[in-house]
């Protein structure tokens, strides 16, 4: 209760301060006058009485101050006056203020922006019910070095019933689907799952209903749930959309519900978010019979039962996998060591971008460090100039704590202004920055400046304020103690201690700059190496386009069901492509190089089992290859190099002897000791299938991305062996956007239900595949440049200040016969010492932390010699340059003027 009274009184002081202050004055005057009146009554003159009253009572201001202290609000007033004083100082030094606030705004702004991305992508829980219990399920064969292999319906049932750890689990088929029936045929991302998918994630529809157990059927349900985006785009947000029919890959599906606006399928980020959701039982047509060996299911996700920890569940699954291997010895080859692994869903979603984001976060934190060191340096210089002010105040009785508090208040004021500017910068530029963030970063649509981000920004501002404010404050206060007014005069305030502190700040600044530069150097070098890498083909003057023949659930409606139907389509496409003016050559492939990043997904290329003639059967299961279907001119369009043998011809068609072309690394891997030409391979695990003969060997093509060491590739003729993915590659000097309408027209002339998508040049594809690396390299590189700039300002500022301070000494030295060269060397030596110390420290720290970046590098070792040589030399050169200027100015000191001034 007492506390409450005090608080109320304190609040009253805060709120009605002005009135209370004037009342205090009135009261004091009343006291003085009453006392004086009594004194007059005792015989003093009016004047004498007033004088005596004033002396006994003391000054009104100090009286007010004593009262304020008694009530405990004095600090508040002091804070106010400190802030006013601080603002006045900031206004008085516009140059310093501008530099400090600009660099702070940049530092805090960069931190806020990057952290808002980190927060949305890495920290915030997935937007589903109990997201901590959602896991990604991997079936692995560590004995064969395979992760995330396909699984069968009985294995899915084992997860649900036998393991006892899952509340729910579903495979996820995601990939392109053709959407027809609403305007232009369109290619959309579709997802097919079990019927429990939505209840597992805990989603509520905004319209209609979602799939549930009552919908169960062995094959695919003739129904679909659509995303909010598709609902708005294709149906104009029609509230009566439920019940309408949508054609997906030519199958008529009834729309049963619309998902809420923010819903996003928790799958790997593909080119677009999934918009059509289907469900099936995976045990009836079009799925093969549900026997253990029919492994066609992919991408399992599941929800753990409540109260189960991940390690517990993992232990149970490992044990179950062992039991299954024991129970079905013919299904699980012992050398494969088939097993089941679970990982938190969130982790697997962000897996690949995590190191990049952490490195970026590290870079911005380093930048804010450098910014505050730089400001600390400027403040120290200013504090030395204010030495006399402090000495005088100290002499007049100000306590050391009081002076430290004032200086900290001043720097907090600065950091909060800078922080506010930084937050404003981040808010204003976030949308712009996000456009440069590579689209493979998941959950970018969730990035926003929320309270967590604001709290982080505030924390960063306060920490920087403390960092750059406290050290100089403590130092000057200490100095004020030791030095005194006696030294007074101009510029004697630069004590050894302050100078050592400033040296330390510069050295740390340089060290941080080295770390950033080494990081940037490694990233830039990786990028440059990748850009210079020979992809095995010539990407210039190649335009690519895609279509997808659709996988209809009802085979009877599918004109492209057999090879002959597809071959007829392919030939017609080629004929029409070649007829487009400006197209020199045209070819078809099932996989455009570099874009093939998700080999397990439907529509991508499955990694297939493979048998090789004359190889023992036991080892055949560890053979895997990616089969790419191409038309005869493909290598000519891509300008890939045939090493030996021949390419395909028009007559390599259905019914003739199946032929294949392999690349050099496949040849080396599977026929290390003999000539691969003429050898035979068999795709799949069916021993009755025909053998395919190798007729040609080409130089390696980087099919899976410039920075991926791919699995073996085997090319087959599209007229003998094709699939539903049809991509065209054209050699032409025309740009992609010019060709797009003609390509679309040509293909839809053959079949108006086919979508034509991603018409882009091969160069753009290469470029985009490096977007993520380019983004981090550019960002870290930019920060490194800024760091070098700030560090050189630091060195320059320090030396320039020293030259100013020691101009008298220089004058005396010169008068005594020192030559300009001596003076120059004197100051340069200082700069060199600092640079060597800072760069040395930075190199040591970088060398011990560079391996943290290993996962972001490709073809460049974390301790790349070139980077570790170039960075220190470059920074050293910059440091020398920054010190040379003030040193050179020192030699121009006019002896007479310098001596007279003092």
């Amino acid at each position, binding site marked *: 209760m007492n506390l409450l*009274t*005090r608080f109320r009184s304190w609040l009253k002081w805060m709120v009605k301060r002005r009135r209370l202050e004037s*009342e205090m004055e009135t009261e*004091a005057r*009343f*006291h003085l006058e009453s006392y004086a009146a009594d004194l007059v009554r005792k015989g003093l003159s009016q004047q004498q009485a007033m004088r005596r009253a004033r002396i006994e009572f003391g000054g009104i201001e100090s009286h007010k101050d004593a009262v304020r*202290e008694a*009530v405990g609000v004095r600090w508040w007033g002091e804070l106010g006056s400190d802030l006013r004083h601080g603002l006045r100082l900031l206004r008085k030094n516009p140059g310093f203020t501008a530099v400090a606030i600009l660099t702070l705004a940049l530092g805090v702004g960069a931190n806020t922006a990057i952290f808002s991305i980190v927060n949305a992508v890495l920290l915030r829980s997935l937007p589903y019910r109990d997201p901590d219990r959602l896991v990604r399920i991997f079936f692995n064969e560590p004995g064969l070095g395979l992760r995330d292999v396909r699984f069968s319906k009985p294995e899915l049932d084992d997860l649900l019933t036998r393991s006892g750890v899952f509340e729910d689990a579903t495979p996820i088929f995601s990939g392109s689907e053709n959407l027809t029936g609403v305007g232009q045929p369109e290619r959309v991302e579709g997802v097919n799952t079990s019927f429990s998918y939505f209840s597992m994630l805990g989603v509520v529809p905004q319209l209609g209903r979602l799939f549930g157990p009552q919908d169960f059927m062995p094959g695919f349900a003739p129904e679909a749930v659509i995303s909010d985006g598709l609902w708005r785009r294709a149906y104009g947000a029609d509230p009566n959309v439920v019940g309408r029919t949508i054609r997906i890959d030519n199958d008529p599906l009834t729309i049963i519900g619309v998902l809420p606006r923010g819903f996003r399928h928790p799958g790997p980020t593909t080119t677009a978010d999934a918009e059509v959701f289907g469900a099936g039982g995976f045990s009836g047509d079009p799925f093969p019979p549900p026997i253990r060996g029919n492994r066609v299911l992919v991408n399992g996700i599941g929800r753990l039962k409540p109260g189960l920890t991940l390690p517990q569940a993992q232990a149970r699954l490992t044990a179950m996998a062992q039991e299954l291997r024991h129970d079905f010895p013919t299904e699980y080859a012992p050398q494969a060591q088939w097993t089941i692994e679970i990982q938190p869903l969130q982790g697997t979603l962000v897996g690949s971008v995590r190191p990049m984001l952490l490195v970026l976060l590290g870079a911005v934190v380093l930048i804010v460090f450098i910014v505050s060191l730089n400001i600390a340096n400027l403040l120290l210089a200013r504090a030395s100039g204010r030495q006399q002010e402090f000495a005088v105040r100290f002499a007049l009785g100000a306590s050391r704590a009081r002076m430290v508090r004032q200086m900290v208040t001043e720097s907090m004021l600065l950091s909060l202004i800078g922080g506010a500017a930084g937050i404003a910068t981040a808010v204003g530029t976030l949308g712009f920055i996000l456009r440069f963030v590579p689209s493979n970063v998941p959950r970018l649509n969730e990035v926003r400046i929320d309270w967590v981000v604001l709290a982080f920004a505030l924390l960063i501002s306060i920490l920087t304020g403390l960092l750059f404010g406290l050290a100089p404050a403590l130092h000057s206060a200490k100095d004020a103690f030791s030095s005194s007014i006696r030294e007074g005069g101009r510029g004697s305030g630069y004590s050894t201690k302050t100078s050592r502190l400033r040296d330390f700040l510069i050295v740390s600044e340089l060290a941080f700059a080295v770390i950033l530069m080494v990081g940037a150097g490694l990233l830039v070098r990786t990028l440059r190496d990748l850009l210079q890498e020979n992809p095995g083909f010539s990407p210039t003057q190649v335009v690519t386009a895609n279509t997808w023949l659709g996988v209809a659930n009802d085979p009877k409606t599918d004109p492209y069901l057999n090879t002959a139907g597809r071959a007829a389509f392919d030939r017609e496409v080629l004929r029409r492509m070649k007829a487009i003016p400006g197209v020199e050559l045209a070819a078809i492939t099932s996989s455009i190089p570099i874009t093939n990043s998700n080999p397990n997904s439907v529509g991508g290329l499955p990694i297939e089992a493979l048998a090789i003639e004359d190889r023992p059967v036991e080892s055949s299961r560890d053979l895997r290859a990616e089969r790419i279907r191409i038309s005869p001119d493909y290598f000519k369009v891509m300008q890939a190099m045939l090493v030996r043998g021949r390419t395909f011809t028009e007559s390599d068609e259905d019914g003739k002897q199946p032929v294949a072309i392999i690349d050099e690394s496949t040849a080396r891997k599977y026929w290390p000791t003999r000539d691969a030409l003429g050898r035979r391979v068999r795709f799949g695990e069916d021993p009755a299938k025909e053998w395919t003969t190798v007729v040609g060997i080409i130089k390696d093509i980087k099919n899976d991305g410039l920075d991926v060491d791919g699995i073996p590739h085997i090319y087959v003729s599209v007229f003998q062996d094709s699939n539903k993915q049809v991509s065209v590659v054209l050699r032409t000097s025309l740009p992609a956007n010019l060709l797009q309408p003609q390509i679309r027209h040509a293909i839809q002339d053959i079949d108006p239900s086919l979508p034509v998508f991603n018409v882009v040049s091969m160069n753009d594809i290469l470029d985009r595949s490096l977007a993520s690396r380019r983004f981090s390299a550019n960002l870290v590189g930019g920060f490194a440049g800024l760091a070098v700039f700030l560090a050189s300002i630091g060195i320059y500022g320090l030396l320039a200040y020293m030259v100013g301070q020691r101009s008298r000494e220089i004058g005396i030295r010169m008068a005594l016969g020192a030559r300009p060269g001596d003076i120059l060397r004197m100051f340069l030596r200082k700069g060199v010492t600092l640079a060597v110390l800072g760069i040395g420290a930075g190199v040591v720290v970088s060398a011990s932390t560079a391996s943290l970046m290993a996962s972001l590098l490709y073809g460049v070792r974390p301790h790349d010699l070139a980077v570790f040589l170039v960075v220190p030399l470059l920074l050293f050169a910059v440091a020398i340059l920054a010190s040379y200027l003030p040193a050179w100015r020192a030699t121009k000191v006019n002896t007479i003027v310098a001596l007279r001034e003092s």
Partner: protein
Amino acid sequence: MAKQIDLLQGTLDMLILKAVSLGPLHGYGVLLRIQQISGEQLEIQQGSLYPALYRLEHQGWIASEWGESDNKRKAKFYSLTAAGRRQLHSETEKWNRMASLIASILRTKSEQI
């Protein structure tokens, strides 16, 4: 003027409470009242009076109100609150116990030990 006694540390608050308990007073009045009761023997530092008054008000033991002084001038009058009355009571009791204890210690003669 009789020789004045300096105020014991910490007793000013108690004296103010006592002075105000006899009826509302303005600041200068508190000073006069204490001097008057003590027979002009107590000297109160004028500078320490007001901080003490404000502190007591801050703690909720006295309340203040603007009113008119004897010479028709605007003045701030302090009066005891219920909490202040309790405080004065317990302070008085503590003081008396302490005083009698110290007095009895000071009266002690060697044969009594």
